[in-house]
């Protein structure tokens, strides 16, 4: 690599910069010029208060007299919305109801990213990832980002479409007041699968698919939300963290510590959501990673070299000693038969142990199930949560966050120790 360009020839630009300042007179004049007397030569109008320094008692150096262009644009954007009551609190953000200033009937959700005391390294990974992908992905089944602005204390605010009908988890859990059938499940699954296909087709992995990240719009449309763990498909050879996806929805390759993986990880989660929609309970609710693997072995089959060549080479491969052969479709019919034989066929294919053989989002969309009766319910006619949804949800809201540990992709949780993996940033 040779000498550091930062300290060596030919120049000093990358070195610690001298904070050379304009000679600002140390004594402040109480008679600073009024802007109107001194228009700039090109006729650009000035903000009132320009030159007057805004706060007259400002310490040295004075605050910038005017907002620059971008600051102004940001203020304009911010002023388009009025923030209302708090809707909910997530791991890294508070969500508020808001409305358009010009048309109060237009409702929005304003997601204000929390300042994470524990994260000392500037803009937090969740916020960076969420914004990165929501800026790019425009699809009816992906939550849409309407605007972004910063509030004065440099907090980031994402203005999202308002999705008032809760999330899929509320519907699943609310057994007493919400009933639904195979046609409804087919409609929800269709919307979820299209969202996932769109992500993968754009080389994006979501990495946190689960019922409470599937929000429901006023018209019944399901929207995939929370891209705080998303990332682009890495080039072959690039390592990714295996500590993603909430445990119950986490595929075996990640539980075994795979650092190279594909869209198949999301497909497994989709399968878990599918199963959960049918049985109205989490399909594989492991209390720990060890138990999660045990549940997979028991309900789906034990991953072995026979059904998954290479699996035993994965760093954290351990399975219970009593090997369970991979269960066939028939074994699922009893518990999941409500969606019919074709539906079960699709479910089984999403939960194929070897990620190389697992069905892809595209293949899912081509599956026969969508075209067999019953037809998916029209979104307007889908069951909705009843009034008590929020409470039910609160009760069901278990701590199911994956805590991303030390690696190049940064922590999701706060208190987790971090170590820099510069290796991952290298070619």
């Amino acid at each position, binding site marked *: 690599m040779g000498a550091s360009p930062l300290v060596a020839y030919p120049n000093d630009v990358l070195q610690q910069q001298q904070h050379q300042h304009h000679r600002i007179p140390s004594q402040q004049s109480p008679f*600073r010029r009024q802007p109107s007397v*001194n228009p700039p030569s090109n006729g650009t109008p000035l903000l009132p208060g320009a030159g007057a320094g805004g706060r007259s008692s400002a310490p040295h150096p004075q605050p910038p007299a005017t907002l620059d262009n971008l600051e102004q644009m940001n203020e304009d954007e911010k002023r388009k919305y009025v923030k209302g009551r708090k809707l909910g609190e997530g791991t890294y953000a508070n969500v508020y109801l808001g409305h358009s200033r010009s048309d109060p009937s237009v409702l929005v959700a304003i997601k204000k990213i929390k300042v994470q005391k524990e994260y000392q390294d500037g803009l937090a990974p969740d916020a*960076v990832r969420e914004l990165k992908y929501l800026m790019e992905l425009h699809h009816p089944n992906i939550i849409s980002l309407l605007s972004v602005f910063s509030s004065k204390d440099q907090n980031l605010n994402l203005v999202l479409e308002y999705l008032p009908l809760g999330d899929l988890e509320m519907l699943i859990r609310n057994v007493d007041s919400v009933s639904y059938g195979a046609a409804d499940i087919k409609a929800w699954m269709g919307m979820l699968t299209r969202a996932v296909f769109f992500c993968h087709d754009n080389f994006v992995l979501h990495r946190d698919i689960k019922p409470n990240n599937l929000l429901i719009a006023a018209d019944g449309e399901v929207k995939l939300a929370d891209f705080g763990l998303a990332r682009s498909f890495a080039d072959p050879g690039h390592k990714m963290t295996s500590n993603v996806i909430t445990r119950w929805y986490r595929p075996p390759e990640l539980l075994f510590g795979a650092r190279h993986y594909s869209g198949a990880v999301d497909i497994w989660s989709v399968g878990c959501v599918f199963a959960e929609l049918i049985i109205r309970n989490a399909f594989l609710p492991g209390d720990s990673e060890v138990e999660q693997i045990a549940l997979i072995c028991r309900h789906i089959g034990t991953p072995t070299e026979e059904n998954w060549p290479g699996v035993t080479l994965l760093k954290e491969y351990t399975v219970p000693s009593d090997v369970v052969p991979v269960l066939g479709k028939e074994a699922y019919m009893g518990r999941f038969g409500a969606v019919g034989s074709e539906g079960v066929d699709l479910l089984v294919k999403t939960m194929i142990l070897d990620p190389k053989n697992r069905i892809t989002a595209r293949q899912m969309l081509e599956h026969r199930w969508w075209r067999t009766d019953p037809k998916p319910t029209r979104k307007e006619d889908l069951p909705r949560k009843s009034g008590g949804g929020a409470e039910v949800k609160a009760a069901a809201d278990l701590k199911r966050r994956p805590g991303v540990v030390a690696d190049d992709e940064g922590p999701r949780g706060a208190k987790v120790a971090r170590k820099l993996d510069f290796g991952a940033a290298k070619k």
Partner: protein
Amino acid sequence: MATEDVRYRESSQFRLWSFSHSQLAAMRENTNAKAVASISERLSSLGATVPPSSIPMDISAPTSTANTPDPEGGGGTPRLPEFLSPADEATMVTFYTAELMRAGAHAEFSDEIIATAATLFRRFYVTNSIMTYPPQEMLVVALFFGCKAEGAFPRITDFLKTFGRERPEEILAGEFLLFRGIRFSIDVKHPFRALRGAVMELRSLGDIEETRIEAAERRAKDILRFSPLITDAYFHYTPSQIMMAALSLADRSLAERLIQATFHHVNVPEISGTNSGADTPNPTTTNTKETNKSEDNKAFIIGSYVRDKVLGTIESCRDMLSKELPERKEHWANRAVYKAQVVPLKKKLNKCHDPDRWNLVELQKVRREQALSSTKKLDGSEDESAALKDDGAVFGSEAKRRKVSGNKKLEDPFGGPL
């Protein structure tokens, strides 16, 4: 290629950061003019109390006030410094982009991280003047943020060690500034993936020597890692166009072969050095009038029109890249060049930078204090700062947008093109 371009139109890179040559030039002139105006204003107001004797004599000799009219007619007003011109700013941005890439290579960052950092840096300085925010700080900020944009999240302290720096607050203070300056669009689309696709396609043609393909790929990749990043290519061309231009610089006839394969339904007789579509027989290329349905004719005409347009675009991108081929790395790192071209501008910059914004750490501190003092009235009630209310139209993003937006839709939630 077609579907990729459809998708590209959805990207923030296209929606927010693609401009015609004249749009981009106008934006930069505007940025420069605004910076000059506001710095002049600021320096004048700061200097109001300075007795004439304390003004350094070299700032302006009595005769050199031409570009800095003194509205007060002299008296106790300080002379304004000489400002950077838009051309000066362009030179500085180019130079610092080269520095950024050198620093990124030193840190052994991936191609994507370096390319993203360079792109974000250049985007930032479309709407911000080099005189307003310090480029040698911002380039390190851009590298730090480039890591994050590409999904790596280094600890700031470790990051700084790589660059022999110590003060995290300098980078962190600039990060949000950069983030806002790039209008929150983090995703940068690069041509690297397209090159991999092109190479696969060339291989699939089956009649090209592997060594030739490999050589072309190597050279094209080298070009992609430098030339588009230090020029305005990303502002004007799509990733696949940039890739084709680089491939064409590496091996022209291979690139032509690829274009031909893409437009195989259109005969490409005018492209030299290839066997002009002989191996891709197609009804539309057989010129028996009777068998040519009008549908085919239409496809042919549209096809050749599109192809000619594509060829023209690739050609102009090629011209742009050819001005900064990878060999120019040495140019920008050359001491003589530095002395002759950069040092004079840095000297100017030392005198004409924005006194309020040059120190990022101070700026952030001041902004935080301002935020604190105004939060009390904020929540619940409306934020009715008189200044803001009156001046929504002053810097009139709206008016400016309309001017340059052309045929792009105005109601873009992110404000359309700047």
